[in-house]
């Protein structure tokens, strides 16, 4: 479970980078631009959340290592 968490951040950052490149290329029409900006916004929010919001599950798993 923890590994998946890690990968999703990485995936999000990669997707964000791709979106950024597409947006910078300036070859999108307004609709596409809006959609991509919206998606980028979601990803940014997600990544920031990863860095600053506690995920209870992770700490719980680590705490339970003592019992093994």
């Amino acid at each position, binding site marked *: 479970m923890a590994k998946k968490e890690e990968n999703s951040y990485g995936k999000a950052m990669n997707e964000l980078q791709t979106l950024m490149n597409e947006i910078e290329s300036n070859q999108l029409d307004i609709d596409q631009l809006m959609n991509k900006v919206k998606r980028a916004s979601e990803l940014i929010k997600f*990544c920031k959340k990863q860095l600053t919001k506690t995920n209870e599950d992770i700490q719980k798993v680590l705490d339970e290592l003592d019992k093994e």
Partner: protein
Amino acid sequence: MRTNNLSLFELNNLVRGVLELELSSMYWIVAETSDVRKNQNGHCYLELIQRDSSARSIIAKARAMIWSNTFSLLKPYFEETTQQRFSSGLKILIQVSISFHELYGYSLTIHDIDPSYTLGDQAKKRAEIVKQLDEDGVLLLNKELPIPQPLQRLAIISSPTAAGYEDFCHQLHSNVFHFVFYDKLFPATMQGEQTENSVLNALDKIYQFKDLFDAVVIIRGGGATSELSSFDSYLLASSCAQFPLPIFVGIGHDRDQTVLDIVANTSAKTPTAVAEFIINENLSQWNLINTTASRIKEISEKRFNHDFLTLKKIQMATSLMLKQKMQEQLINLQWYKKTIEKTCFFTLSREEDQVANAVESLANHAQSAFKQANLLLDSMQKNIELQSPENLLKKGYTYILKDQKLIKNKRDLKIGDEIETVFHDGTINSVIK
């Protein structure tokens, strides 16, 4: 029978005398320490040995001691310089004086020490370990591991009582950026002889759960007698070098790095510095996200503004064109209006004139026609008057009436008819004969 025999004491005393006389008071020697111990008076007793080149067998040995007043100066000086506890198994460069005691035999008294020799020796040993690790192909393995992002889940190897550990955790969990971290302590002894084994055990345990962590942190507080020699272990360094998670080390080295520092993915001077490093990794990510966000915002704003401006331009241009067209049409209409007015005016004027002319001409014609008719009438009247019976009667003509009827023909009369003959001045009745 011999008479010239000495007592043992005398012999020993002789030897002592010779030694004291013949040899200079101090020598600088290199030796290896062994069996180092300190008694309650503060004096340090040890054995000095020298091994052969294979380092297996001892070829020289001597007892030695350091007086407590010397030792109280020497020990901190040595340990601070070498970052190493004064203990057995060290190669040292010392200034000694020889003493030979009748009872205690040969021993050396240590007066001074040059720690740089030990440092040099340490450095040499370290270099050898590093070389070996390089030859094994593992030296750079941990350094080459990419640091997982986000860097949040940490396996900490430290002593729970060490101040370094508490400071580290506090710093991480109260960082100003509010980054979250998850940590688990794997306790170990961080100094003394058990360090190597203890840390290796901790690493083994962490290895079982390596998927739950992003990195391993090995930390301990510094201090005057930091004694880092345990971290110059080949075994420990090799394990760390090959560990599948990046290892961050903050064991309080001052000058030289230990082999562990060299092999670790990242090495810092103190646990605090390690915490700072970890927080900065997260900060980099945070900044990267923000930069990306700003960039995207900038570009899309630019784009929207550009499109908005374009639309506005089109709107304005259209509006302007419209206005112009309307103006043109207005001018046209006004021109038409004027033209029509003028034309109407002219036409009307002309018609009016024509009517006036016609009326006048009609009047004239009427008048002359009237005049002519009058003249005609006059002449007709004159003619009629001339032709009037009165005039004729006046002229001497008469007309005849019979039975009140006018007689125009002779034949109409027969003899005996009574006629009336009308003269201008009266009638005469007659009978025809």
